[in-house]
């Protein structure tokens, strides 16, 4: 079979991307971009105003001193310039590649084999990427602006774009659904859109770089407890309900894996063990999809209404939603600009996937016991063959990251503390130092010392299980005044906590904020990993949308849908109650 379809589509996508990059670089799109990137454009105007003021002042001073006007300076880059340059870099890289491969495809006579197969994948990748780019850079900001405008105009008292999560993740999934169901996936892209799951798995493995050992230990314990209860509980409930409702053992078995563990993959993994038919697998996949898609859109809205934090929402989505891709979709829909919720949700998801061999083992034993004439199965082989390799990749990536292979271990949150890198012009001024000195004297006074002591206890200002004392606060103040900058992360943490005290002098508060900011730096490597993650998950989730078709949803029905819906609801509501009652934010 020859897979490559001769079509100019890939070439056209490449050209479109290069045109977008070129227009951005030349500034021809500045008018449009100023609407799409309002916040960055605001920063641009501030930088420009400051630059114009300084240039004018320099000219006037030179004129007053009878010197020639200074040479024209270059305006510093604003975040608007950086965003445009980023867009141009990305589309030029992909656009150039697609253009070259598109030309090659048109000129080449394909022969059956690996080259034909993998070349035929590229147009589908380009098709998804084009959707991701349009959604992320055009539709997401348009909906964001509309949501704010409608609220500001008083038409609605709430931001509809925020409440309905109309961000690039949800819009990307919707774009995928529309592309597959309304317009149909074009034949030239059909082979390549099947790479979406590969994008998601690559993203999950790469996510391993963004956890600290402490975070993983905390989340790991929580996830094992919650997943243990809810996954095993829902598998058990499906087995009980299946028997009561007189479903076949094979149908009950495959449905329990789908509803209990991780959706489609679990159903496919468990199917041979319980001898499920193609029809039973289709019923399960339909049930998982119809339930999971509803959850993916509903969970983020409920999360916002209940004002959940990243740990709470991540724990709930990772436990309550059935399918791995849908967990990522819900987490990113809830928090599209940060990676914290995704990090928590994926730990739960990975824990759930790790339960898969165990569940398959359980179902094998259950099936052998309940099905008359069932063949014996090699249980060890079942465990080895069903173990998901990408989870090992995630663990390996985390281990290397913890050892500081990719970036120093304390960079994992994207920001790091460095006293040595504080620039000379960021050292505290005399006015700021005097404000700090005044506050130190005040806080040492008998009455205020008591207030400080009470504040430290009430706000549980703690460093590594040790409660911070007033003496440590005084020492942090003294060191900041002496060095004009923060010297250690702990000092920065203590003073930042104290800066929240009521009645603190605004000058001292500002000095602490500035000193803290001056010693915090962005980790370029971790920021780049975060960018890659957003692209990989965005790519995978648009592809996920393309798999949600009317035909696949119609597969659900009858008893499996009733059982799946009931157990899914119990799991979602039960995990929500547990999360709200017992899970606290700690990230």
């Amino acid at each position, binding site marked *: *079979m020859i897979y490559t379809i001769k079509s100019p589509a890939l070439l056209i996508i490449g050209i479109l991307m290069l045109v977008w990059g070129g227009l951005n670089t030349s500034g021809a799109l500045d008018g449009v971009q100023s609407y799409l990137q309002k916040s960055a454009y605001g920063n641009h105007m501030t930088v420009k105003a400051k630059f114009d003021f300084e240039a004018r002042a320099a000219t006037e001073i030179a004129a007053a001193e009878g010197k020639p006007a200074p040479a024209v300076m270059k305006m510093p880059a604003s975040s608007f310039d950086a965003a445009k340059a980023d867009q141009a870099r990305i589309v030029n890289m992909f656009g150039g590649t697609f253009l070259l491969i598109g030309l090659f495809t048109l000129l080449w006579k394909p022969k059956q084999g690996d080259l034909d197969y993998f070349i035929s994948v590229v147009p589908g990748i380009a098709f998804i990427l084009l959707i991701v780019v349009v959604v992320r850079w055009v539709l997401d900001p348009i909906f964001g602006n509309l949501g704010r405008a409608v609220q500001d105009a008083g038409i609605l008292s709430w931001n509809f774009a925020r409440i309905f999560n109309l961000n690039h993740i949800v819009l990307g999934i919707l774009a995928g659904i529309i592309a597959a169901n309304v317009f149909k996936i074009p034949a030239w892209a*059909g082979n390549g859109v099947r790479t979406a*799951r590969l994008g998601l798995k*690559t993203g999950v*493995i790469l996510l391993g770089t963004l956890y600290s050992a402490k975070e993983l230990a905390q989340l790991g314990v929580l996830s094992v407890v919650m997943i243990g209860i809810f996954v095993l509980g829902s598998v058990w409930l499906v087995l009980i309900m299946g028997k009561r409702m007189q479903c076949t053992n094979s149908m009950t078995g495959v449905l329990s894996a789908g509803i209990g563990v991780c959706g489609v993959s679990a159903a496919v993994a468990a199917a041979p063990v319980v001898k499920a038919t193609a029809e039973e697998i289709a019923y399960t996949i339909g049930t998982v999809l119809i339930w999971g898609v509803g959850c993916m859109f509903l969970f983020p809205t409920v999360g916002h209404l209940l004002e959940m934090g990243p740990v709470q929402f991540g724990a709930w989505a990772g436990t309550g939603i059935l399918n791995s891709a849908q967990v990522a979709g819900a987490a990113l829909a809830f928090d599209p600009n940060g990676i914290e919720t995704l990090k928590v949700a994926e730990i739960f998801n990975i824990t759930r996937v790790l339960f898969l061999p165990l569940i398959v083992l359980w179902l094998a034993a259950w099936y052998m016991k309940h099905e008359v004439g069932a063949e014996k199965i090699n249980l060890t082989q079942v465990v080895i063959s069903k173990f998901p390799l990408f989870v090992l*990749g995630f663990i390996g990536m985390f281990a290397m990251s913890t050892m500081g292979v990719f970036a120093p271990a304390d960079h994992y949150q994207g920001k790091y503390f460095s006293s040595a890198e504080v620039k000379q012009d960021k050292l505290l001024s005399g006015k700021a130092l005097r404000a700090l000195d005044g506050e130190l004297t005040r806080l040492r006074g008998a009455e205020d010392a008591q207030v400080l002591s009470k504040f430290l206890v009430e706000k549980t200002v703690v460093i590594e299980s040790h409660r911070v004392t007033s003496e440590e606060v005084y020492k942090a103040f003294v060191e900041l005044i002496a060095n004009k900058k923060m010297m250690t992360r702990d000092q920065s943490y203590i003073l930042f906590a104290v800066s929240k005290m009521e009645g603190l002098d605004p000058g001292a508060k500002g000095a602490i904020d500035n000193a803290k900011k001056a010693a915090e730096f962005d980790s370029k*490597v971790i920021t780049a990993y975060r960018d890659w993650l957003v692209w990989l998950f965005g790519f995978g989730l648009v592809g996920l949308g393309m798999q949600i078709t009317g035909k696949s949803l119609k597969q659900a029905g009858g008893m499996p849908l009733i059982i799946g819906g009931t157990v899914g609801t119990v799991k979602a509501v039960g995990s929500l109650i547990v999360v709200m009652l017992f899970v606290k934010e700690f990230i």
Partner: protein
Amino acid sequence: MSKQNFERGSSLSIFVSDRREDLTALIFAFAIAFGVMLTV
């Protein structure tokens, strides 16, 4: 998805097995991790 049939892989993946897809994802993820580390 389109109604195309594929001799290789499934309707969800271009790979013949989950293991192969996992392995490819592993290679890509490490390539990105080291690529970023060396170039940024």
